[in-house]
């Protein structure tokens, strides 16, 4: 049983943000009279150094054992106050926060009276919960200073080298015989028109020779278990399975080029209808010759159809693998809804290569929107100077491809800019197709518990703020595995993922949040519902009882909510604590 609570309440004016609306002294006065409150004060800025010092002082002088701060949002300030409480010698979890700015002074700006009353309610509720708070300990784990990089494309190799150069051991696995990924299959790269080998070559050479990198080709990830700092992975290599123990994992297994189904634009029917990827090969082999004309069609299998998120919410979040399988199947015919970002430049690049090799060849590019972002505008200009013809066709009416008697191909399209129907007799038709997610991710996603987005690519932890993190601690994503990117963008994300991973490894230890699920073994019947529902694979049924591996638990509370036997509660958010808060709201006298 916990000792008699002695609660200190600290109410913040937040300059004029709160004080300008709410009568802070009145709220403080009110708080000081609440049961179990030993001390209450208000300050202009509780988060300022002065304010924090006041908290430490009060804890000491009034031997407080609980602290409530009524100010702004925990999202921004809770870590700071917890740290302060800790400095004051208390367990950081003996701290509760009431948000009387965002939820009070800001939203009730024009009703100061009522706002003040609401502030009292919020403080009262916080105090009620504070009384029941218990100390928590944050699990801390060792982090192995080794990393597994899955996929030796430009992103993977860049990430591997960055970590290896920092002195970390890196296992770099590649499903194919040679490193290089899809870039290896390209001929030249925009906008520098450097040969892809000029990029892949040095990287491959470096990863092969680096003493900290163990490159394993023709190797895939067979099994992964464990958690941040301590993943156990089994790698399927040509000479049998190999086990490794790593602190972090970077997923960089790339994407594939979408191949249209046979018959779409006569693909795989007429042999001179090819994809840009195939044209790359033809150009490398110098098999193109000097044709009279080439017609390129953009967005083949891209920006088509639509995936309604609602339709996908039906899937249990744990089974991203199944989700991706369904998406891939559906998309094979219909194409992908997203813009693949790199196809416009890619087409322009090949157009330029053709023109420079054979200026007389007439190159026509049928596009919908030309997405030559950033400085690639100059690249587009260069193509126009070479007299490449850009024709904006009406995408809703797909061009019709037909063989002509004289063995050429006729492309019939509608020009959106003149309203005319145009026919191009051409030798070649080149289809610009998007990058699409790989099936191989299915296994990975399942093993690593990384969610997959509705577009089929792996999900970032936060699309805006954490682009190379995943919501699994210690697992990072880089390159096209999280959506189409060009070479430079993949290299940047490789560096970024390496930076994020190396932080964990350099610090050797990582603390995770103490707010985790707690199983009452007397009530648990081991039905396994929690195991099924958990997105992070924290619960495991052992000997008929659910065991929570705290390090994996993210405290989302799904299991606690689902558990039919009410055997699971959340630390720091126990039912009794929440209910006490609610009671405090409904029964003002407390």
């Amino acid at each position, binding site marked *: 049983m916990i000792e008699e609570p002695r609660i200190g309440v600290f109410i913040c004016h937040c300059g004029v943000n709160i004080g300008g609306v709410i009568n802070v002294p009145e709220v403080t006065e009110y708080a000081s009279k609440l049961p179990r409150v030993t001390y209450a004060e208000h300050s*202009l*800025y509780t988060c300022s150094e002065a304010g924090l010092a006041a908290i430490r002082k009060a804890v000491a002088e009034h031997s407080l054992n609980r602290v409530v701060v009524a100010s702004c949002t925990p999202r921004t300030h809770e870590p700071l106050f917890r740290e302060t409480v800790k400095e004051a010698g208390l367990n950081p979890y003996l701290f509760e926060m009431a948000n009387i700015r965002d939820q009070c002074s800001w939203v009730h700006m024009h009703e100061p009276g009522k706002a003040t009353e609401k502030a009292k309610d919020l403080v009262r509720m916080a105090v009620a919960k504070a009384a029941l708070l218990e100390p928590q300990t944050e699990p801390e784990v060792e982090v192995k200073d080794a990393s597994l990089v899955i996929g030796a494309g430009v992103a993977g190799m860049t990430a591997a080298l960055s970590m290896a150069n920092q002195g970390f051991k890196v296992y770099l696995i590649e499903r194919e015989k040679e490193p290089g990924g899809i870039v290896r299959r390209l001929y030249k790269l925009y906008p*520098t028109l450097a040969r892809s080998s000029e990029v892949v070559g040095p990287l491959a050479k470096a990863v092969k020779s680096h003493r900290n990198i163990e490159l394993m080709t023709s190797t895939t990830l067979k099994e992964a278990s464990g958690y941040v700092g301590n993943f156990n992975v089994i790698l399927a290599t040509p000479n049998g399975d190999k086990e490794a123990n790593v602190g972090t994992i970077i997923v960089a297994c790339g994407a594939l080029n979408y191949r249209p189904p046979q018959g779409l634009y006569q693909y795989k029917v007429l042999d001179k209808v090819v994809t840009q990827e195939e044209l790359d090969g033809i150009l490398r082999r110098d098999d193109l010759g000097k044709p009279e004309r080439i017609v390129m069609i953009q967005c083949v299998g891209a920006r088509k159809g639509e995936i309604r998120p609602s339709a996908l919410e039906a899937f249990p979040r744990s089974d991203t693998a199944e989700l991706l399988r369904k998406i891939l199947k559906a998309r094979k015919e219909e194409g992908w809804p997203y813009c693949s970002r790199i196809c416009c430049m890619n087409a322009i690049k090949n157009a330029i290569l053709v023109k420079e090799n054979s200026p007389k060849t007439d190159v026509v590019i049928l596009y919908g929107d030309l997405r030559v972002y950033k400085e690639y505008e100059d690249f587009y200009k260069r193509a126009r100077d070479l007299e490449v013809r850009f024709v904006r066709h009406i995408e809703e009416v797909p061009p019709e491809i037909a063989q002509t008697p004289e063995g050429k191909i006729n492309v019939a399209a509608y020009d959106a800019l003149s309203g005319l129907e145009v026919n191009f007799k051409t030798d070649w038709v080149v289809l610009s197709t998007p990058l699409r997610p790989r099936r191989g991710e299915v296994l990975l996603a399942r093993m690593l518990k990384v969610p997959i987005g509705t577009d089929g690519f792996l999900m970032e932890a936060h699309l805006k703020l954490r682009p190379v993190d995943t919501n699994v601690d210690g697992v990072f994503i880089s390159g096209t595995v999280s959506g189409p990117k060009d070479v430079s963008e993949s290299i940047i994300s490789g*560096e970024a993922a390496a930076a994020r991973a190396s932080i964990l490894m350099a*610090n050797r230890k990582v603390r995770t949040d103490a707010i985790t699920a707690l199983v009452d073994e007397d009530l648990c019947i081991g039905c396994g519902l929690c195991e099924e529902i958990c997105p992070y694979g924290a619960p495991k049924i052992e000997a008929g009882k659910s065991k929570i591996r705290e390090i994996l638990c993210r405290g989302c509370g799904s299991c606690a909510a689902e558990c039919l036997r009410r055997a699971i509660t959340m630390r720091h958010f126990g039912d009794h604590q929440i209910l006490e808060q609610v009671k405090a709201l409904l029964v003002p006298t407390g």
Partner: protein
Amino acid sequence: MQKAVMVIGGGIAGIQASLDLANRGFKVHLVEKDPSIGGRMAQLDKTFPTMDCSICILAPKMIECAHNRNVQLLTYSEVKDVKGSIGSFKVKVLRKPRYVDESKCNGCGICAQNCPSEAPNEFDENMGMRKAIYMPFPQAVPRVMVIDKDSCIECGLCDKVCPADAIDREQQPEEVELNVGAITVATGFDMFDPSVIPQYGYGRLKNVITAMELERILCASGPTGGHLIRPSDGRIPRNIAFIQCIGSRDRREWINHPYCSSICCKYAVKDAVLIKEHEPNTVVTIFYIDLRAFGRGFQEFVNRAKSEFGIRFTRSSPGEISEDPSTSNLVVWFEDPTTRTVHHNSFDLVVLCPALIPRKGVGELAKILGVELDNYGFFKSADSVRKPLDTNIPGIFACGYCLGPKTGDVPDSITQGSGTAGRIAEILGAREAS
């Protein structure tokens, strides 16, 4: 001994680089020329696609910078001189006087409440007013006031009312010299001034505004308290036009920003949707040349903007805007892409999407650092494909929009920020005993 590095520019890219480097174990000196870190992202209302309040997701990172033991914030400061080479740069930083003692001020704002002198509020794109002693915005980091001497009338009132006795009108510029092993530049962008293109009437016609001004108008902490009203008469605009590529994709020598700014199409669609959320029965039309909704989730977002929100997309670049003097409504001349004839429609409000251009003074900084700029005046990558974040000087890197419109949205800036942290850890980390 702990290795030190420097980050120049405290926008989202610089903040990310600083945090990653600090957490990696480096001592980080973060130099910001404005009184607060936060940069452009702090000015935005909401961010696609989560529609999070921009400052609300940025503030925690700003505060993390302020409280991270390894980060030294040098706000209101500028780099004046750099000597040395990779591993040991000697950097002179000029700390401009705030005339407020950083160690004493707790940002209570009482001084500003009492200050009698006002000046246009830069943070609100000069639409609202702020006091001569002010905090750029409520969530500013550090929470320290600054006196703008140009508008200060030396009445001394702030001195009298300050409970922390923090006012120091005698404060002098201070030069600090720092030794760092590597530097990353993240100075961001400025906005092209649309009044350079007279036929769009910016600066002349009241209801022609820029996208950044719109962001502030839509923002709850902005000059209108988040109410979407137009400048001329405070009425709610019912019919709004966005015009893309104002100064972008523009090769005319007196403008000369031939590149695509990369984010305008995307934020315009976002703003259009925000407007619809504010005022559902507003008609929003976006005039564009090529709709560049690339990047994860954007195409899907555009589809929704069309089908769910009924945003109108018109592929035409208007020629000129004139004003109906009686109503201050705007007449936009454009080619109707369906009939291919010239039309003129009336709008209550026109939002121009100006080019994003190199920061003012970036040329001098480049000279000081000895790094090359590209044809447009952005920092130049050592190799745009293989070494996108490196400059021509070993040990000096760049990230975010100062590298040019490398798609330039928030996730990319963050990736680049982390990326430079990776590059620096790569060259200094190995030698360092962390």
